[in-house]
């Protein structure tokens, strides 16, 4: 029975010129967005590979020089783009993709296209995620607003109910019919996406991406299901199809345009973040005056000198078997680590709290949940950015320690590091955040998503079984 209703709804929609027109536009937009995303991904990842190789090359080919100078010379770390980023760019444009790893400093990420963009640009960017998150729900509204209200106006609803069809079956059948019509759009898009994914990534990253793509597809399916349920509920409850359309468009505007804006302003107000200038100043204050505020850098060096002399039972630095300069450099680095860990830790925790608030906001607007999930599964959310930044920083610390150790081992003030020392530093290799951790960062999105899915389904069934005919 339900299948029969779904088939009829589907046939009717497919024969309707309005659906065909709307679907064609959305399909063209979706495919071109996927294509552009894919092109962007393959360009960027080729550049990424080349740049990563070049920075390693430059490091290895340094002329012999003071190891500390080599540490100042440093290397770049480039955040690899995961293949699925062609679906959803996420926060990449805002947080940057490359960081310079050098002595003394934990740098900010660079290459943030959003820095040079105006606020208006946010709306004009056509990504697959925009089409999937904003336009498809609009299409669902157009398909679904009249499902019950329209049949009631036409008079066919009375006839259907007089046949002895359970209203619950009607609702389920209609929902499936709309899903089937959407499948006409989404199945080809998914197949093309899958093909692009296979083309864009090697076998290893394909193995990593496939479960993520599966979950991504499932998430969007859930998003559309809940939108269909909302459309059916409103259509069953509304007095007229015109009213249903207006109510649904209102919901769309609130959740797609108003809610993200409100969530952003609210998080900024609740969890303000320091400006770049303030942040840099508090870091340099802590390093200069000490984290307790009254142990200056000089005092810390003098204390270190005394303890090293005592450790080796020496009277003067010249009598030490090692080069004190290296020890002092490493100690000051390590003090820096504590300062950076404190400040970056606090900043990033704050960003994460902002993200959590966004996710929790999804209880009012499901878009916020799907947006967060989509970024997470595409590998472009903040949690994965932080994971990369942490890995890059650990690598920086390994590099600096290797150079400082080389200073410590050589008492000769004119000592120069050789290419052997440069080579002893392994190349930077980054393993992306594993899927369970990606999902763990999305727990509130998943909870809100579940609440919406169950709530909207119940609402649709409730409204349908109780509607007037």
């Amino acid at each position, binding site marked *: *029975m339900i299948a*029969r*209703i779904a088939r*009829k709804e589907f*046939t*009717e929609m497919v*024969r*309707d010129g309005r659906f065909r027109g709307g679907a064609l536009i959305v399909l063209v937009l979706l495919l071109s967005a996927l294509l552009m995303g894919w092109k962007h991904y393959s360009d960027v990842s080729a550049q990424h590979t080349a740049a990563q190789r070049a920075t390693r090359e430059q490091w290895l080919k340094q002329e012999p020089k003071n190891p500390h100078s080599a540490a100042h010379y440093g290397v770049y770390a480039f955040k690899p783009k995961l293949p699925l980023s062609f679906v959803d760019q996420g926060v990449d444009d805002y947080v940057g993709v490359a960081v310079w790893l050098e002595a003394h400093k934990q740098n900010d990420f660079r290459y943030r296209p959003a820095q040079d963009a105006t606020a208006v640009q946010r709306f004009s960017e056509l990504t697959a995620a925009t089409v999937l998150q904003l336009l498809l729900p609009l299409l669902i509204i157009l398909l679904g607003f009249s499902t019950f209200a329209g049949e009631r106006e*036409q*008079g*066919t609803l*009375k*006839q*259907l*109910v*007089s*046949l*002895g*069809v*359970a209203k619950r079956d009607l609702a389920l059948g209609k929902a499936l019919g709309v899903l089937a019509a959407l499948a006409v759009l989404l199945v080809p898009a998914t197949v093309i996406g899958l093909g692009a994914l296979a083309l864009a990534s090697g076998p290893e990253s394909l193995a990593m991406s496939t479960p993520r793509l599966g979950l991504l597809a499932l998430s969007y399916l859930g998003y559309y299901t809940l939108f269909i349920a909302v459309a059916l509920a409103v259509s069953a409850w509304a007095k007229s199809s015109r009213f249903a359309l207006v109510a649904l468009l209102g919901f769309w505007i609130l959740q797609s345009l108003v809610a993200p804006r409100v969530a952003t302003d609210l998080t900024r107000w609740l969890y303000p973040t320091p400006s770049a200038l303030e942040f840099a100043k508090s870091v340099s204050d802590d390093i200069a005056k000490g984290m307790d505020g009254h142990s200056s850098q000089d005092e810390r060096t003098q204390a270190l000198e005394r303890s090293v002399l005592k450790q080796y039972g020496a009277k003067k630095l010249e009598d030490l078997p090692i080069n004190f300069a290296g020890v002092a450099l490493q100690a000051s680095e390590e003090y820096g680590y504590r300062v950076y860990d404190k400040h970056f830790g606090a900043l990033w925790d704050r960003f994460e709290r902002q993200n959590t608030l966004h996710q929790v906001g999804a209880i009012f607007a499901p878009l916020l949940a799907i947006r967060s999930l989509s970024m997470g599964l595409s590998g472009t959310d903040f949690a994965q950015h932080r994971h990369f930044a942490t890995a890059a920083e650990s690598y920086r610390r390994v590099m600096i320690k290797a150079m400082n150790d080389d200073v410590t081992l050589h008492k000769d003030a004119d000592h120069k590091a050789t290419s052997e020392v440069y080579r002893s530093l392994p190349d930077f290799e980054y393993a992306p955040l594993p899927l369970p951790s990606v999902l763990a960062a999305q727990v509130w999105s998943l909870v809100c998503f579940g609440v919406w899915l169950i709530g909207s389904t119940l609402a649709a069934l409730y409204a349908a079984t109780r509607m007037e*005919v």
Partner: protein
Amino acid sequence: MLEAVELTKHYANATLALDRLSLRIEPGEIFCLLGPNGAGKTTTISLFLGFVAPSSGSARIKDLDVQSHPLATKRFVAYIPEQVMLYRNLTGLENLEYFSALAGQDSYSKAALLGFFDEVGLPQEAATRRVGTYSKGMRQKVGIAIAIAKKAEALLLDEPTSGLDPKASNEFSALLKRLGASGVAVLMATHDLFRAKEAGTRVGIMSAGKLLTTARTEDLSYEQLERLYLESMAGGAMQGVKR
């Protein structure tokens, strides 16, 4: 087959749409409810279909109360409104197939479905045409075809012939008579005295929610029926004044 027991309906705005209607329609009977607009004819049919709940009393189909058996009672009846509405993006055949499948008859072959078209006098070429182009008479016939396909034991019709040209109207009555002869119980609300005399076996005259009088059509000539109707209306109006 169809039975109303003290059936009463007050709407929310306090109008008494139906006042203690008691009525029994046996298989093979064609009962025509006559009366002006607002007499309670449509309310009666809506109550038998469970579209609205009675304020008191009950509507029964095959001894089952409509309110407590909303799906089971609908299995036995077919409903034909003033204007049978069809899905305009589907062909006549697809509409018939869909409605009969939803009525629980989902195993008809295409030939069988075309047979129903034939039975109600619809041309075969119309079957494969989208119904956007159908005339009202054709739609009403599709309504009958659905009822036949559904194997309905009772028919509830709400002014099914209003606006039909005399020929289409006549064909429609002929179909009804055939169904009646095959043992279907029919309850038809209509304004059309002539049609009631022509097709009906019994008539009931209603006014202001009350069933004033019933009669067998074979006992009356058309003129007598008309006089009975007009007298009832005058009496009903008097009653209204007294109240």
